[in-house]
């Protein structure tokens, strides 16, 4: 059996390996998962077939455990190729393919763009901004805004007003934020002092 290490140095071929039959010992947790919901009867004579063949669509059917849930079997499910090609990831969320907003930081030579949708809330967003621009944001409090840092994250909302990031619920923020600006210095302090 190939060792797991060998595969990890590879292009993770194991994930796309086409196999059928005994997956070996590598996917133990998936095996457990699969056998828990799979009461197949073990079949005789399966072991000698599978061996090192790579089992593209070789037997076998029916071992104690099915192929790992991550592997694909050739030609299964039986769908014609033209139909697979047709299944372009449709805009299942039509208008919200991604909320990209510009982020500027005072003093930085160019702007960045981020997709607000990938963050679950303010902490992730702020962390991401910190990483992106290599700075630290202070601690937020409703009364005093961001304390403990020169930088204050602000955003322009739909009405064109510059607001402090963090005041409104995350969802409301996502739908109203048009752009972000990380203010620095005295300007920041003006906003940060909570008007």
């Amino acid at each position: 059996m190939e060792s797991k290490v060998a595969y990890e140095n590879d292009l993770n071929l194991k994930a796309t390996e086409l196999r059928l039959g005994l997956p070996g010992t590598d996917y133990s947790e998936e095996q457990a998962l699969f056998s828990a919901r799979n009461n197949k009867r073990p079949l005789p004579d399966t072991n000698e077939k599978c061996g090192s063949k790579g089992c593209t669509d070789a037997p076998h059917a029916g071992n104690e455990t099915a192929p790992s849930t991550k592997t694909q079997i050739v030609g299964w499910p039986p769908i014609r190729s033209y139909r697979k090609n047709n299944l372009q990831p449709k805009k299942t969320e039509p208008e919200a393919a991604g909320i990209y907003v510009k982020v500027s930081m005072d003093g930085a030579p160019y702007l960045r763009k981020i997709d607000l949708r990938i963050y679950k809330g303010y902490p992730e967003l702020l962390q991401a901004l910190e990483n992106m621009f290599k700075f630290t944001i202070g601690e937020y409090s409703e009364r005093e805004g961001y304390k403990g840092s020169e930088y204050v994250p602000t955003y322009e909302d739909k009405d064109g007003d510059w607001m402090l990031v963090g005041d409104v619920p995350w969802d409301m923020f996502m739908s109203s934020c048009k752009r972000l600006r990380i203010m620095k210095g005295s300007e920041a302090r003006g906003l940060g002092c909570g008007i």
Partner: protein
Amino acid sequence: MDPERKKVLERVAVSTFPDEVLERVLVQLKSHKDRSSVSLVCHSWYDAERFSRTHVFIANCYSVTPEIVSRRFPNIRSVSLKGKPRFSDFNLVPPKWGADIRSWLVMFAAKYPFLEELRLKRMTVTDESLEFLALSCPNFKGLSLLSCDGFSTDGLAAIATHCKNLTELDIQENDLNDKSGSWLSCFPENFSSLEVLNFANLSNDVNFEALERLVSRCKSLKVLKVNRNITLEQLPRLLIHAPLLTELGTGSFLQEHPACQYSELENAFNKCMNLNTLSGLSEVTALSLPALYPTCANLTFLNLSCAALQSGELAKLLVHCPCLRRLWVLDTVEDKGLEAVGSNCPLLEELRVFPTDPFDEDTFHGVTESGFIAVSYGCRRLSYVLYFCRQMTNAAVETIVQNCPDFTHFRLCIMNPWQPDYQTNEPMDKAFCAVVKTCTRLQRLAVSGLLTDLTFEYIGKYAKNLETLSVAFAGSSDWGMQCVLGGCPKLRKLEIRDCPFGNAALLSGLDKYESMRSLWMSGCKVTMNGCRLLAKEMPRLNVEVIKVDGSNESQADKVYVYRSVAGPRRDAPPFVLTL
């Protein structure tokens, strides 16, 4: 008079019909099954039939040679040919396997220069062949290519350029090299005979103005199916020129500019009152869907398998489609959508539900057994179903077939192999037992889920009308397949993959294979020796083994057995061993 003598006299009387009269009568017979029966009556009927036959359907291109066909049927105008085994649709047959149309075309050019129609399924067709066809048959009218490969849009250009009397160009679901859309512009400017045009599965842009002119010239156009590059803005410009349309496949149904062209669209659809079939609708949204409502009143076939509709959108649409008999959807409609089907489509006979994410096993979307049950309560006339799902129960299927006992085609695909009834954890045997016991008219069955030999015992015992059986990842032992081969008197096609059936099972069908069209077994336990034995015992069968790279010497990886009067293939590639 002695009854025996009377019978003989009657027989003589019939066969002294002048042949011409007999032929005139036989010309009315269209069904090839009837014609086969007629040809078996006596020699003079055989002759009358063969002279009067104008259409020949060859279900396996290797079962007969072009020479034999042309010798028997001298007056053919229309040919339908099928080539590769069906599992080639799922990449189980290596490329360059065969089924090349070339040798048939050579015969057509020589013996059927007046050929008008050619319908091919799973054949290999090259551009040169298409050009050869166009040039050899000046009266050529109809070309239909389904699931074929080997050609490019250059071949289509040749057809468009040379076939002055073309009425049908139907290019469906092929594996072609789509180089450009310029083939459409090859139709001459005075060409106007087209009645059927289907290029829905081609991906390159065609010249829209050329298409518009073509549609407006072809006053008899009845079927138009465009590809998804044709926009919603462009569609009305086509529809106004084609008031006789009965089948429409739209392009993209995405509205770029909401307000302005909605009314144009509505007007255009209002004029299309003859539509009975609608397809395409890719990228359709809730906004654009209502434009269709007026035209849906007479729809009998709605193909939404390229349109990722949600349940609510489908429900609203179906309210306008009371006459629907055939419906194809994606599983984005979910069970709720299927409930709407049950509520709104009492005349439904065929339902196909395709998966949107077939390879994503963790998805929780899609349809379940509840959707199917809901349809069965509302659509009692259901006779054809193709259902892809991730969970099913025996009880559900039992209910479904009780509600709809008239199934002729029951194709259930539980997408995770060997999956048991998810509620009881039992095998799905009971489900298929119910299907074959209740649905006495069943002709086609595809099974899935965790299945033991019991399923096959029942199939063999009860499925008296079964003609086609597809099996994957099922069964426990040879006994299962033996039961099927020992029962199922009308079995014609048996296709099996990844099942524990071996030589004993294969050889148990010795007496049956000549009455069947073909047998496919891949990923099973059959060995070369078993196949050799079969070939030796049954010389009139072609026993072919497709060798897969790197496999064991003695393993018969993929076996294809079929009856043939043509003898072994002469064009087999190196990886196909004829035993």
